[in-house]
């Protein structure tokens, strides 16, 4: 079974700063995907970024980027030039690659607060 661990329950930074959220996972699978989802106080889960495990290049989406270390099973999220709208719960998630319905395994979440 896969497990996902987010060791930072809460983080707080000033607007415009850079912040890094940590995520580690445990799996015996070789083909999988990793995701970061954001859940703002309105509570709709929004996809932030995704990474295919077979790709060595780290994914980036505007101000969001990841540091994917496959051997270490680490998948951190970096938010550059943080904005007030980035305040949310952030969940790291794992999905095995393959046929059929693919189940997401979530970490415990990190509550990120961006202060003005």
């Amino acid at each position, binding site marked *: 079974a896969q497990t996902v661990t987010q060791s930072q329950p809460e983080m707080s930074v000033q607007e415009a700063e850079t912040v890094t959220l940590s995520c580690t996972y445990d799996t015996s699978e070789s083909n999988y*995907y990793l*995701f970061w*989802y954001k859940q703002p106080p*309105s*509570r*709709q*889960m*929004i*996809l932030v970024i*995704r990474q*295919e495990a077979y790709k060595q290049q780290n994914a980036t989406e505007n101000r969001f980027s990841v540091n994917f270390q496959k051997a270490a099973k680490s998948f951190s999220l970096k938010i550059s030039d943080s904005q007030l709208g980035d305040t949310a*719960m952030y*969940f790291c998630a794992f*999905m095995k*690659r393959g046929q*059929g*319905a*693919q*189940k*997401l*395994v*979530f*970490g*415990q*979440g990190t*509550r990120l607060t961006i202060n003005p």
Partner: protein
Amino acid sequence: EADIYQTPRYLVIGTGKKITLECSQTMGHDKMYWYQQDPGMELHLIHYSYGVNSTEKGDLSSESTVSRIRTEHFPLTLESARPSHTSQYLCASSEYSARASTDTQYFGPGTRLTVL
């Protein structure tokens, strides 16, 4: 992006009542999912579906049931609600994207259920 709708958004109901949480998506996705999320906690998969007439139980045991008679509709039913069922229920759908080479789940806004 998928359009996922959930109704009601909030529901307060007494013990013993039968309830149905509605979930629908307009993108024709084959796969749909139900997650349960307690406040400030990670999501746990309780049901999923590969397509019409296909339903499977997820990783977290649940007394709820689901049905998938139409592609766009995946309702969740509790025959007799109890206080232990108080939680947030999130619906998601997905379809494999060759362009993105991944199966990404998109979430609805959730239903917050309180059973008195």
